[in-house]
């Protein structure tokens, strides 16, 4: 028997759009040995997931394989019949999806979904499989492995669910697992646990894996070899070490250099200046549940304050207090030294104008039924009272600023824009109000790295031109390094630490800041191993239980 487990040769895939078939994958070759982990990286739309699914002989609706073969252990999955494929899928090839929360059936307990595969394929009896599930949960360091399987998916955290999904993929001891961005939706600290768990279990069982991601630092930890895709074509492939140290192609180099964008930090603040925004002992709660406790920080003119923390730390709630969507129960928000009414409905038009917001999901932030021109024109008309030709002139000017020429984009609908372009329209809408202060809520987290960098550069440039102040909410510390002047670290609704960026990134830190900082994946392939050794294995599991409490 040869050493090769999976061989994809000259794979071509087409997708249907607007009544015609467009090529998505234009001839990919791929080879995977037993027990090997291959990283597939590229921007969204590069065809990573399509290749991943094709490796199982599967295509989404409206997508077809036109040429090439997918040889899994001697069987061509492109030509295999449905019953033949069914015998392989789940048993010898398994799949871990990006969103475990969306992939588990919410109506069944975890363990019941876990045993389905083994029982159906006749690998184990139900009782054996349940016992095995508990052992797997233990290996993946899930808290309470005896009991966690008897919970429903909504009763466990996202990171745990992702690990339960990995356990489920392992249930039949497959030869190949396809991981499709398994950690993209998770916080940095949770991501580490999942990565460590996945790597361990893949090592232990000698399972081969295809690891799909857009995060280079993550793939560096996981993969033996890396293949870079761009628009359905292979850019290059090499072993992880070689790829990181000597990328050959220009495109790969550009991917690698994204993380190097950094703007110079501004000089320290003059203490006597009035801050644009000041939060003074703000407390807030949703119903009876308090979410913010005595939060205070200042944001000065022309500066960027990054608010960092995991999900649930209260950073978005602080933004809602500033905008007035959630009136604080206690404490005040000041704009230019004047206290703002707590509820946005009681603020004046001018006060509303001064504070603008850019949203994380550009998809939901733009009305899908309005053209780009209309979206940007509305605040111009509403706040500035411009009409007709003057309004159009101002909109054109704004569209120039976000580098989307009006001649081409004015009449387009949001659905006809890419993610990055949508985010730019969101920025233009905020700028149209000519505000002093803009809240950027995770504005780059849904974007590819190259695109995200473009957005960050644009924001930095606009800040210099227009003397804007930003409150930059993020959980990505690489972004903080790139753009922030000051940093506020939040946890459980409290400000843990704050100060200029330079101070925050040099030790000593608050222990939590330290945890956050050390959890950001680095490009060094040995980073995860070192980190886990430093922290000690058991710690990682404890962190998960901490978070549940």
């Amino acid at each position, binding site marked *: 028997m040869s050493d090769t487990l999976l061989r994809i040769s000259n794979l071509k895939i087409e997708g249907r759009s607007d009544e015609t078939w467009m090529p998505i994958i234009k001839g990919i070759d791929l080879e995977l040995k037993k027990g090997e982990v291959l990283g597939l990286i590229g921007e969204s739309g590069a065809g990573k997931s399509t290749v991943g699914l094709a490796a199982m002989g599967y295509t989404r609706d409206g997508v077809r394989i036109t040429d090439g073969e997918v040889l899994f252990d001697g069987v061509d999955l492109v030509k295999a*019949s449905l019953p033949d494929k069914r015998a392989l899928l789940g048993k010898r090839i398994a799949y871990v999806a990006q969103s475990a929360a969306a992939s588990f059936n919410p109506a069944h307990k975890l363990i019941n979904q876990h045993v389905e595969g083994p029982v159906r394929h006749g690998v184990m009896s139900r009782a054996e499989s349940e016992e095995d599930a508990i052992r797997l949960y233990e290996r993946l360091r899930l808290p309470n492995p005896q009991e966690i399987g008897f919970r429903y998916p909504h009763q466990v955290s996202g990171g745990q669910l992702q690990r339960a999904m990995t356990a489920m993929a392992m249930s039949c001891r497959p030869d190949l697992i396809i991981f499709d961005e398994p950690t993209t939706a998770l916080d940095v600290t949770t991501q580490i646990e999942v990565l460590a768990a996945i790597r361990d279990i893949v090592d232990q069982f000698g399972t081969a894996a295809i690891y799909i991601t857009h995060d280079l630092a993550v793939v560096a930890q996981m993969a033996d070899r890396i293949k870079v895709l761009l628009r359905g074509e292979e850019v290059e492939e090499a072993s992880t070490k070689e790829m990181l140290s000597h990328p050959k192609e220009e495109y790969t180099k550009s991917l690698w250099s994204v993380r190097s964008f950094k703007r110079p930090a501004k000089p320290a603040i003059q203490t006597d200046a009035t801050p644009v925004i000041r939060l003074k002992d703000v407390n807030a709660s949703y119903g009876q549940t308090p979410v913010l406790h005595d939060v205070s920080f200042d944001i000065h003119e022309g500066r960027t304050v990054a608010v960092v923390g995991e999900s649930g730390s209260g950073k978005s709630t602080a933004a809602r207090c500033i905008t007035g969507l959630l009136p604080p129960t206690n404490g005040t928000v000041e704009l230019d030294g004047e206290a703002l009414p707590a509820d946005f409905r009681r603020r004046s038009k001018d006060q509303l104008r001064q504070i603008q917001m850019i949203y994380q999901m550009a998809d939901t932030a733009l009305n899908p039924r*309005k053209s780009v021109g209309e979206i940007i024109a509305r605040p111009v008309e509403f*706040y500035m009272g411009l009409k007709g030709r003057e309004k159009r002139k101002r909109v054109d000017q704004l569209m120039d600023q976000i580098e989307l020429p009006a001649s081409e984009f004015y009449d387009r609908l949001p659905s006809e824009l890419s993610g990055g372009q949508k985010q730019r329209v969101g920025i233009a809408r905020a700028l149209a109000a000519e505000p002093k202060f803009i809240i950027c809520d995770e504005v780059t987290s849904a974007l590819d790295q190259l695109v995200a960098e473009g957005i960050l550069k644009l924001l930095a440039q606009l800040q210099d031109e227009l003397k804007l102040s930003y409150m930059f909410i993020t959980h990505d510390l690489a972004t903080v390094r790139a753009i922030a002047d000051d940093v506020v670290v939040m946890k459980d609704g409290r400000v843990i630490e704050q100060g200029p960026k330079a101070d925050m990134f040099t030790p000593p830190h608050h222990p939590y800041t330290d945890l956050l900082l050390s959890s950001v994946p680095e490009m060094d392939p040995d980073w995860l191993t070192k980190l886990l050794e430093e922290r000690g294995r058991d710690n990682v599991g404890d962190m998960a239980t901490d978070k549940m409490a």
Partner: protein
Amino acid sequence: MITLLWIIGGLLALLAISWVLRKLAQVVSGNKPLFRDMPLAVAFGYVLGVVVLAFGVWLWFQPNAVFFRWFVQGLAISVVAAYAFRLLGRTIGTKATKKAFRQMPLTASFGFLVILIYAICAIFAGVLAPYGQAEVFQNVNVLPGGNPATGGDPAHLLGTDQIGRDLLTRLIYGAQNTVGIAFATVCLAFLVGGSLGFLAAVFGGWLDNILSRIVDVLMAIPSLIFALLLMTIASAWAGSQQWLLTVYMVLIIALIDSTRVFRLARAVGQSIVVMDYIEAAKLRGEGLGYLIFREILPNATAPLLAELGLRFCFVFLTISALSFLGIGIQPPLADWGTMVRDLAQFINFAAFSPLAAALPLMAAGAIALLTVAVNFVVDWMLHKSSGLKE
């Protein structure tokens, strides 16, 4: 019992045949994926289709199957007319309408054609109809067809009813009365139900609670019985003034149907209100009118339009039903529901004289045709608007 066994036995035989045929196809075609991966149910479907088709051909040549032949002929004429209409639309008109016609399926162009014909009938009823809608003639119970040999009369192409009113005239005027009133009712229902539904979605809280509970109460009463009850009261108020009764009927049906619209508008509105762009508009300081009509409404058009198509048909059927029961549109106004009621007993002659049975079927067919046409058009609009989003 025996028949049932025959049917089950026949179906099983078909299943066996389809299995054999699939096997045969697999062998002959050299195991092509089309046949190899074909589930048995699909093969069964093909075989059943062939059998049904053969049955249709056989039925066509039976002397008694007059209605079946009429139906098939009508279907063929519809397809040809729809095709011709689409061809016409593709060659004449502005760039936009030409493009719309190019993308249109046959069903939608048929729907448009029917609606267009109905609209022309309704608007120009006075010009198109050969006689007045209340005009009474000597010849009663003339059969349709206009051929004296089969009991027709060239002066009355579609025949006359029991008291000698020309049916073609009354069908044309019926379009004006029935469709016009249904249209007004449905517009009113959407205006009231839609606005209140969006209002409840935007405000939430107590306003939402009060409105929703009122709607729940109204919906708890069976709608036709509720309408009957209210119409009885209304007829006492209207007294001898017939037009007033019609106005009351519009208001009553609009009220009852607006509850359904309210529920939909509220549900759709609630899912839109949580979007970030609504939050952005609120934070901009926009007023309620702008929020509802400029931000929410454009995103709710697809489901509302689908509801409009259905609602229109229901309203239309309710009016016909009320007229059928004698408390809807009052004589001498022509109305399709009343026509069906007046001529209903002729359906008993279907076995002996298909032409006599056609008398009530013409009005019923007019109702059915419009219902189908509206739904075809709405389906297509929905498809188009959902296609735009992707």
